């Protein structure tokens, strides 16, 4: 849990109003978090996007096209699978997996890419740029650009290009241009900076297809909406299969798009616990992990990065910290602002799993269920494996399996050999 800070004061002159809801009147606020902190050059494009999105939401034609592509192209609905053998071996809660890994391109990311791709088409913007960490968002973006006949440029940190090499080939095969980013620590954050610079320069012709619930309004809201389908389906499927709701929903959190998508339709179900799992990396000091919600020394605190106000890993002078995770998709120093609000309100709880935990969970799920999870999703599996034995057999754990692990075979081979597995 992050430390309680009087966050409303950034926006609201009267700081006596406390944290949540302090400035809810401005668009794109999640309690005190979120907002729009961008260079003025981008404001017109953000306003245009917000407007276009509102019109699209109200347009049955848009919704019908989106639904059709989600169903017939991406493969929705995804199954809700009872992991019987893993549940039995752990003893305790019944573990269900929401199989976003079975979607076209291998992760939940395609939900948002289809949505924003159709939106860009409506806005008449035929050049798409995006950032990618693990490469899943880049692949999904390149896929949708191929489908809609759009120009596609993907920014990716050079460190990530090495560790997710297969996805680089996939993007290029799909016709995208992949631009390596050599600034900073050469990972996701640096790719976003470079994508923002491209957008500032080409804003009149280009749509920035941001891949998580980050950035300036309307992105955190819009990307969440495109992923809500995960929780909506899972809730319905859970009621069909078990006749009741889960005790907890567990999801990994990088920027937090798969987690917010899985959580959102359960927020009103007060008895359903929401658990986000951050990257615990290899230690607790700044630079060793990406656990933004962890308080205390080496943990996160409220700040502004890349357009939004949320928890950030930073030093005392407000310089953004380096991060580490074995999974490129969780290796980022900030977190979606809606998660910050859910954390402060006590509605969701944020924990972390280490690199080792994630690697072990990857092996465990592969060998008990025949499912190789993405290293990102393995963080959620690790937390489920930790808590399931402490729970009753009447409890149900719903784990969002956000992506599949094929992309990680290089890392897995290397890391697991080191560990002698």
């Amino acid at each position, binding site marked *: 849990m992050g430390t309680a800070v009087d966050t409303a004061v950034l926006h609201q002159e009267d700081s006596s109003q406390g944290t949540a809801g302090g400035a809810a009147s401005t668009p794109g606020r999640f309690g005190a978090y979120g*907002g729009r902190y961008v260079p003025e050059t981008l404001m017109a494009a953000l306003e245009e996007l917000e407007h276009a999105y509102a019109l699209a939401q109200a347009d049955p034609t848009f919704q019908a096209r989106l639904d059709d592509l989600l169903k017939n192209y991406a493969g929705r609905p995804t199954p809700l699978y009872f992991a019987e053998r893993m549940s039995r071996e752990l003893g305790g809660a019944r573990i269900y997996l929401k199989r976003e890994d079975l979607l076209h391109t291998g992760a939940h990311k395609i939900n948002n890419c289809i949505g924003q791709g159709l939106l860009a088409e409506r806005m008449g913007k035929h050049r798409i740029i995006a950032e990618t960490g693990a490469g899943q968002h880049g692949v999904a973006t390149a896929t949708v650009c191929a489908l809609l006949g759009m120009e596609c440029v993907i920014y990716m940190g050079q460190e990530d290009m090495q560790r997710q090499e297969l996805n680089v080939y996939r993007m290029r095969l799909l016709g995208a241009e992949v631009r390596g980013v050599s*600034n900073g620590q050469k990972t996701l954050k640096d790719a976003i900076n470079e994508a923002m610079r491209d957008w*500032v320069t080409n804003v009149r012709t280009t749509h920035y297809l941001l891949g998580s619930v980050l950035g300036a309004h309307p992105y955190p809201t819009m990307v969440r909406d495109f992923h809500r389908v995960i929780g909506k389906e899972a809730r319905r499927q859970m009621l069909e299969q078990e006749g009741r709701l889960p005790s907890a929903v567990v999801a990994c959190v990088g920027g937090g798009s798969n987690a917010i998508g899985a959580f959102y339709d359960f927020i009103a179900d007060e008895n359903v616990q929401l658990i986000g799992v951050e990257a615990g990396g290899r230690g607790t000091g700044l630079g060793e992990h990406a656990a933004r919600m962890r308080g205390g020394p080496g943990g996160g605190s409220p*700040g*502004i990065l*890349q357009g939004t106000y949320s928890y950030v890993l930073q030093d005392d*002078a407000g*310089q953004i910290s380096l991060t580490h995770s074995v999974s490129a998709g969780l290796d980022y120093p900030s977190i979606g602002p809606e998660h910050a609000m859910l954390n402060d309100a006590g509605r969701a709880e944020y924990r972390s799993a280490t690199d080792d935990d994630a690697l072990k969970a990857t092996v465990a799920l592969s060998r008990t269920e025949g499912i190789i999870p993405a290293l990102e999703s393995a963080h959620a599996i690790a937390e489920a494996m930790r808590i399931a034995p402490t729970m009753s057999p009447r409890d149900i754990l719903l784990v969002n399996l956000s992506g599949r692990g094929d992309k990680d075979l290089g890392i897995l081979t290397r890391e697991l050999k080191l560990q002698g597995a």
Partner: protein
Amino acid sequence: MPIQFNQSPGSSGGAGESRTGRPGLVAYLTIGDPDLDASYDIALAAIDAGADVLELGVPFSDPLADGPVIQRASERAVARGVSLTDVLAIAARLRAARPDCGLVLFSYLNPVVRFGQGAGFERFCAAAAAAGIDGVLLTDMIVEEADAYLAAMARHSLAPIFLAAPTSPDARLEKIARVSRGFVYVISRVGITGAQAALEGDAEQLVKRLRRYTDLPLAVGFGISSAEQVEQVGRFADAAVVGSALVAIIEASSREIAAEAVGRFIGGLRPVAALARS
């Protein structure tokens, strides 16, 4: 109209005679590159060579509106541990040495928010005013998010300076003009900071649109690096901002000669004005 900070909003402040008829010059420096003492010397040289206003750039780890030159300078300064506190200390020294120069703190938002220790902008504004800062420009602060910031700035008689972009519709320009003090920073073109050979038509068009809403001085920046461009800006705006070109000179110079090189470059930016005065 020259840039003057100690005037009430809306008044068309009296010009220093000698400055009439030539564009003002605003010089941006990334403070702490190559080091703090060198930045101080360079800043003095810039003022003495004719810069009317200095923008003191606070190094930040993620300068997403900046081109490669300022990115590299920022990265070097961050690596040296240069912080907002250090930049304010340099400002205080400059204010003591050159009481009449305009000093603008130029920063991304996060170091400023962090400086506030979770209590908004009060601590920052008090420290900036105490250091003799005249105005503040926050790259990623837009007018809609600025209520608390503007209130704290007003309490300390600091001038909030906002960016106006070629992409800003008139409704936004009106809001920007309404809350800006000191001057408005007119972005000459869409894009990140950095030199370019020729000015695009965007800038003059934007100045004309903005002029409808304000009498404040309008300073045009992004990509200005030559006397010709400064002169060109002077035909339709009040001041030119030179940034990346200076930072590039500092990068290319040894520490010992950087101040002299910057002074010489700034001196050379206004040969026409210098002629007119002689």
